[in-house]
């Protein structure tokens, strides 16, 4: 009665092309070809992003049969494989707390406002830890480009924001809840929150918005919060190469990291070293959806290796 049967784990570890999915186990040999091929094909930045973003991948599912969309095809296949072999990656609560503590300590060092809070469960009176960040932001700062000129005026107002990152025991993964208010205390509408999604992903979210961000009741406070649907989070974790079973192996030496020096110095891949802390990797992946900024220094916070 383990968390996953061995069969499932096997299904997860294999990509649709039969290769091991996780980069760190076989290091360079299994990971690099994928990254290289992306280079060779001259894949656009957007396509690279799609790799890490399951919504995008699913949206491309319709093109599966068209040979002209090779990269899209590959992505959709792996997404389909993930769908068949779900459930996939899971994080234990203890791991979540470890990663959250790690994130918090880096946050303290750069003073960007994350704090680790406790909630006492009314049922068994256990304390549950979760991350909180509150700030005020001018909205136009994170929607880098806007296709609609009329939304500029809308985007210029300052908003008060509050982010909660909790552990979701049903999905065994992190779960993000957030609220945004205008400075007069009025909650932003769901439509407004959708409109704030980064232009990179806007199209994908627009098509499936009711499965992306909706308003839900916060499990601790029983009040409405916006929430990124958690069922996708396990997919994100998987695509980032995380598994609760062997993630601690990441820390075995820095050797494999050196192999990815070129990745780490390439700003497009700056999230790769984040694999040290899957919570940060996950958060930086979903952040464009919820207007959150993750400082670049999270990327190599643990790295003792200086990249020049």
């Amino acid at each position, binding site marked *: 009665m383990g968390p996953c049967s061995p069969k499932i784990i096997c299904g997860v570890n294999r990509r649709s092309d039969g290769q091991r999915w996780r980069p760190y186990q076989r290091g360079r040999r299994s990971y690099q070809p994928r990254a290289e091929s992306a280079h060779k094909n001259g894949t656009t930045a957007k396509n690279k992003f799609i790799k890490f973003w399951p919504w995008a991948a699913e949206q491309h599912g319709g093109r599966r049969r068209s040979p002209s969309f090779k990269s899209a095809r590959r992505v959709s296949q792996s997404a389909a494989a993930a769908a068949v072999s779900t*459930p996939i990656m899971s994080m234990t609560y203890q791991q979540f707390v470890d990663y959250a503590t790690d994130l918090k300590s880096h946050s303290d060092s750069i003073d960007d406002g994350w704090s680790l809070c406790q909630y006492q469960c*009314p049922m068994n009176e256990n304390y549950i830890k979760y991350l909180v960040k509150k700030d005020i932001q001018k909205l136009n700062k994170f929607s880098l480009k806007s296709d609609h000129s009329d939304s500029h005026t809308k985007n210029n107002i300052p908003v008060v924001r509050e982010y909660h990152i909790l552990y979701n025991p*049903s999905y065994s993964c992190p779960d993000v809840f957030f609220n945004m208010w205008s400075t007069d205390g009025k909650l932003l509408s*769901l439509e407004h929150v959708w409109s704030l999604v980064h232009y990179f992903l806007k199209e994908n979210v627009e098509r499936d918005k009711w499965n992306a961000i*909706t308003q839900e009741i916060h499990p601790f406070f029983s*009040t409405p919060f916006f929430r990124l649907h958690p069922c996708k989070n396990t997919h994100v974790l998987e695509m980032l190469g995380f598994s609760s079973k062997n993630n601690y192996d990441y820390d075995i030496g820095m050797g494999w990291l050196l192999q990815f020096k070129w990745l780490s110095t390439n700003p497009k891949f700056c999230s790769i070293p984040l694999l040290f802390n899957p919570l940060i990797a996950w958060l930086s992946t979903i952040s464009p959806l919820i207007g959150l900024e993750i400082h670049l220094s999270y990327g190599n916070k643990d790295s003792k290796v200086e990249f020049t």
Partner: protein
Amino acid sequence: MANDTEILHYLWNGKLPVCFQLDEQEIHGIQNPEPFYLMVPRMSYFPLVCDKVKKHFVKHVDPEKQEMEMWLEFKNIPLKWNNPIGVLYDLFTIDDKQADLPWQITVHFDNFPEDQILRCSCRESVESNFMSAMKEADMLKHRSQVFSTMQRHQHNQLWTGLLNDKFDQFWSENKKLMEPSDGSYFKHIPVHFYRSGSSVMTQTLVKPVSEDGNHMTLGELIKLNYPSVDNPKIFTHGICIPHETPVQWMSEHMSYLDNFLHLVVI
């Protein structure tokens, strides 16, 4: 697989008589609107059954407020539409000996309590809420193996079955979600716990088997999660459930349509 299909029919057909009345402060004009009576399915959700209620009252409020979102209140508590109607009724009346039927509910258009209840601008928000609850329930029961392999039209069957009150349509798909995948147990039992009088929901991982290897009973479950409650009574669908009921059986037969058991503990 659910064998006691009669129970499923009984619960599906459970209805509540409700009397809706517009808040006195919001009445615009001289004529007071008549109260509106409706039989509503316990298993359904308020936004799915309240179109007529809105139509009836909207002409009696200030024209400037007619476009605002309608919300419901019982004894000064805004009702969370994301909970099934039967759960809301049990939560706020089961302790109250004086609660008479029909259930008296106040209708509002103004002052939406956005810090307490979810916005419900359209059917999609109910659908999204309902389907994501189902998905979560399947994650708990089968590690999401069943729901994620269902086709979109099968998902639609579940939703339209609820929407149109069609038992056969809903259960033709839902029975797949109610089959234990290995042996005779789900992996976990999807349960939402409530204390009567408050809509605060708590959730923990519930196993269908107790530590001694036997099936977990409702009494054991409550003792485990509410150690400090003396002689608890557990209600769902307005029924006080015997403590020796196995939770696995309950999950298969007494779950609401979102596949969660909603238990009210007194």
